Each structure stands twice: as C-alpha cells, then as structure tokens.
C-alpha cells in the first residue's frame, strides 16, 4: 500500500467478498511523540512536519498553535494571512497528491501524472519561499520565519492560473468520466451515523452532507477574514469523497486569491524569548485545525520546562484508517480495497506517528 504510506490490511474473504478487515498500522511508527519530550520546544519543529509526509505544513501550524496558546503569544495580522495562504497552497498540493494516488489506483495514469506535475509547480513555490520542497519549517511560534520575496505573490497567482486552467481537462478526463463513476459510485459508503460514531471528519464527514470544517467551526489564522464555502455531497461513497476533494481544491485556489487581495502590510512575526533557553509556562491545551484530511488536533502539556512534557497529535487518518476502514470494507470486493482506502484519504505516517 505504498500510495498512502506503509500500511497493511488483513482480509478474511469468502470468494471475492470481504467478511472481516483488520488494519495493521505500525510500519511507520517512529515514536515522535516520545522523541519530542527529549528535545526543546523550537527543536521539535523539524520533527513535527515529518509526521505527515504529504502535508507537513498543517503539522507545523498545529504545533505552533499549541505552543502559542500555552505561552500566550500573539501572531501579527500579516502573518495570519501568510499562514492561511501557505496552508491553502499546502492543501492544494496535498489534494493533487491524493488525486495522483486515487487516479493511479483506478488506472487513470495520465491524470495521475498531470496531478503530480501540477503539485510540482506548487512545490516550486514552496522551494522559493522556504528553501525546501516538502518540509518547510516556515511557521514558528509568533508568526512565520520570513516575509514573501519580491514578486512572490505574482508567481503564486500565475502558478494557480496555470493549474486552474487545466481543470476542464481534469473534469473531461477523470471527474466526469463514466469509468470513474462506475468504479466509485456506491463503493465504500460511510453513512452519516457511522462517521459521527467513529470520529470522522474531513471528506469522510463532508461527503455525508455535514458542513463540518474546522476553519468554520473554530476559525484560526485568517479564515474568518474572507468569504468562502464548505463543499459537501450527500451519498458518503468514494465518488462523493473524491468530488468533495475536487471542489475543495478549487475553493482553496479562490481563497488564496481573496487572501492575497486582503492581506495587510506589517510584521510577519512577534519576537519570542531566546528559543534555546525558552521555558513555556505550565499548562495544557487542545488546539485543532483543518488539515487536508480532516481535523488535526494537538493535546500539548507543559510542566514549565524547556521541552514538551507530552504532545499527542490527534491526526485525522487515525479514526479513518483504523475504525472507519475496518467497517467500510466489510461486504466489498477485494478489487475495491485500494479504491476505498485511498478515497478515505488516509495517510499512514499520520496514524503511526
């Protein structure tokens, strides 16, 4: 199961039908949460992003939000906008990656390569901004590391226009394709009741019709400064989930344009104490944000020391890849296992941490 990360599922089958599915995570368990307890607050930033390989930026954001909440640090307005733009670019990149995985799984190799190419254009933007294509270490407590380079905003707009200009091609080749409809309609259905009982969020929940998006439920960064819509479908099957992904990608692109227009000038970070000697006040906090997979939360505890006493990441793939997957696979055909797994939008490194 390389496309979602190293993960395995043990299936009990009768002929072609699955009777029981048992998820086996653990191939990517690196013990990050324990390792974080042994490193200072600032030294943990390169570690947290490696928990989710596909969208590391939301991990940086959630860790930063947790530390800021414990330490009482404010973030300047311009930095909030930059964070939102940065996170939405990451969402576009992550959805393109998910589209690569899903289209490949169904055999639409051409569309998958287009998605990977367009993701590469987004990664070029990240490389210009932060020096790294995948792991950026750009958000830190108090704001972001540096301001946009000159002309960067124009390059964001032109990159997004070139990706957006290909949406009709994507629609004609994949999203409106009868083959996608036949392969995904009614497959891997997760009902609203099941999603609610099993802690589902993100596309798994929005494909059942609930407009649950942390950016609206618990607004953070600059998401409440511009108007935007939450996209839902009603059937809860793989077809609906992938359509929600497509709609969200397009909404993110529009959101970036609006954020760029509304972004004020100003500082991009507030000074924090000397990071190498920083002791965050005692306390605990649960913060959450909307990663491209669903609700990403962090329960962080400080005992007043120079490293986290406990950091527990509540990743969206944890309920989706363990409990929801085991239920959704029962009664389905072996041929649809990959289809369902990727449509549930699971990223294995997030489950194991």
């Amino acid at each position, binding site marked *: 199961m390389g496309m979602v990360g190293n993960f395995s599922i043990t299936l009990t089958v009768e002929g072609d039908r699955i009777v029981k599915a048992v998820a086996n995570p653990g191939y990517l368990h690196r013990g990050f949460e324990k390792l974080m307890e042994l490193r200072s607050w600032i030294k943990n930033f390169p570690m947290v992003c490696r928990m989710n390989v596909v969208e590391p930026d939301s991990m940086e954001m959630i860790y930063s939000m947790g530390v800021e909440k414990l330490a009482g640090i404010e973030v300047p307005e311009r930095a909030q906008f930059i964070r939102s733009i940065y996170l939405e670019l990451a969402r576009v990149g992550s959805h393109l990656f998910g589209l690569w995985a899903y289209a490949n799984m169904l055999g639409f190799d051409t569309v998958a390569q287009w998605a990977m190419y367009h993701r590469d254009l987004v990664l070029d933007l990240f490389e210009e901004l932060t020096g790294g294509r995948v792991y950026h270490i750009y958000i830190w407590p108090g704001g972001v590391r540096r301001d946009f380079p000159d002309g960067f905003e124009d390059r964001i707009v032109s990159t997004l226009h070139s990706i957006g200009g290909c949406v009709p091609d994507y629609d004609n080749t994949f999203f409106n394709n009868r083959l996608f409809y036949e392969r995904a309609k009614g497959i891997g259905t997760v009902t609203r009741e099941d999603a609610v009982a099993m802690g589902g969020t993100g596309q798994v929940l929005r494909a059942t019709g609930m407009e649950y998006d942390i950016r609206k439920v618990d607004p953070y960064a600059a998401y409440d400064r511009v108007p935007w819509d939450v996209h839902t479908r009603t059937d809860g099957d793989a077809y609906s989930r992938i359509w929600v992904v497509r709609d969200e990608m397009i909404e993110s692109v529009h959101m970036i344009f609006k954020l760029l227009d509304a972004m004020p000038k100003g500082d991009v970070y507030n000074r924090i104490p000397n990071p190498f000697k920083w002791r965050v006040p005692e306390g605990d906090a*649960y913060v959450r944000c909307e990663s491209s997979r669903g609700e990403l939360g962090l329960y962080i505890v400080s005992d007043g020391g120079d490293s986290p006493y406990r950091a527990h990441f509540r990743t969206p793939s944890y309920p989706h890849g363990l409990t929801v997957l085991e239920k959704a696979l029962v009664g389905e055909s072996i041929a649809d296992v990959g289809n369902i797994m990727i449509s549930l939008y699971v990223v294995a490194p997030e489950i194991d941490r």
Partner: protein
Amino acid sequence: MNGSLERQLDSIFRDIQTDVADDGRLRVRATAESVLSVLKFLKDAGCDYLQLVSCVDWVEQDQLEIVYVLSRYIREGEQPGDDQTRVVLTTLVPRGAPSLPTSIGVFPIAEPYEREIHELFGVRFEGHPRLTPLFLEREYDIPPFRKDFDTRQYVEDLFGAVPPVGEES
C-alpha cells in the same frame, strides 16, 4: 453551553471538579470510578464527538492521567461555529495498577485510542475486545512512552552500542 453543562454535571455528580477555563473550555476532573458515567452523561447531553483519548505520565506523582477531549457535531439547522461545546475530561489512575472501564460502548471510536494507550502506557481498559499491540512488535518491561523508559538504555540493550553524540568519530 459549557456553563450550563457545568451546572448540570455539578448537580448530578458528587465526586467531580469542574471549571470553565479562560478560553471557554469546560474542564472536568473525575475519579476512575465515575469517569464512564460522566462520559455517558456528556454523550446524552449532546457531546457526540470524542476527538481524542490521551494519557500523560505524571511520574513524580506516581499517577497516569487519562484525558478525554469532547465536542459536538453540527445538528440540522445549525451553522458551523454556532455551537461552542468543548470539554476536557480527565481522570487519574495509579501507575502501579492502572485500570479503567472501556468507553467503547459510549463512543466506538475509543477502541484504537484505548488500545494505543494500553500498549504505550500500560493502562488496562476492562472490557476492551482487542488489547493487542497496535504499533509495536516486541515486548517491553516498561511501557515505552512512560517517563521511566530509558531510550538510550533501550538502544544499548538492543544494538549493543549507543552512537556517540557530540564526540569526534
């Protein structure tokens, strides 16, 4: 919503402590005996979203703290953000014999969280159907996420040597 939940909890349960924090979040401290009843009450009162079950090792107090983070999904006719129900429920168990009843009957999603806490911290959840290892492959004398699990000693025992740190190599 959190204020009225606090009043209801205080009127029903004798052995809990509640307070509403500055950020509006309701904090409930329950005993190990009452935590399952409090969870059932919160679920019936509308907290149908168990976001996280976590564990913190307070080694100096010789206790493990189990933390339940709850909120509420959106109902018909509500807008996202209307409801601000946020609850953090905690309970303490002794490190020597940590045991709690399972919450799977109230929240099915608790199953993997409790399994992970059992594996990494050693807490037994009575009634859990599958307390088998989730991530790890070998047995450990001390559950690995506890504070007295020495990671350097573990590396030395397993590999026979610890890589030099900060030395010329």
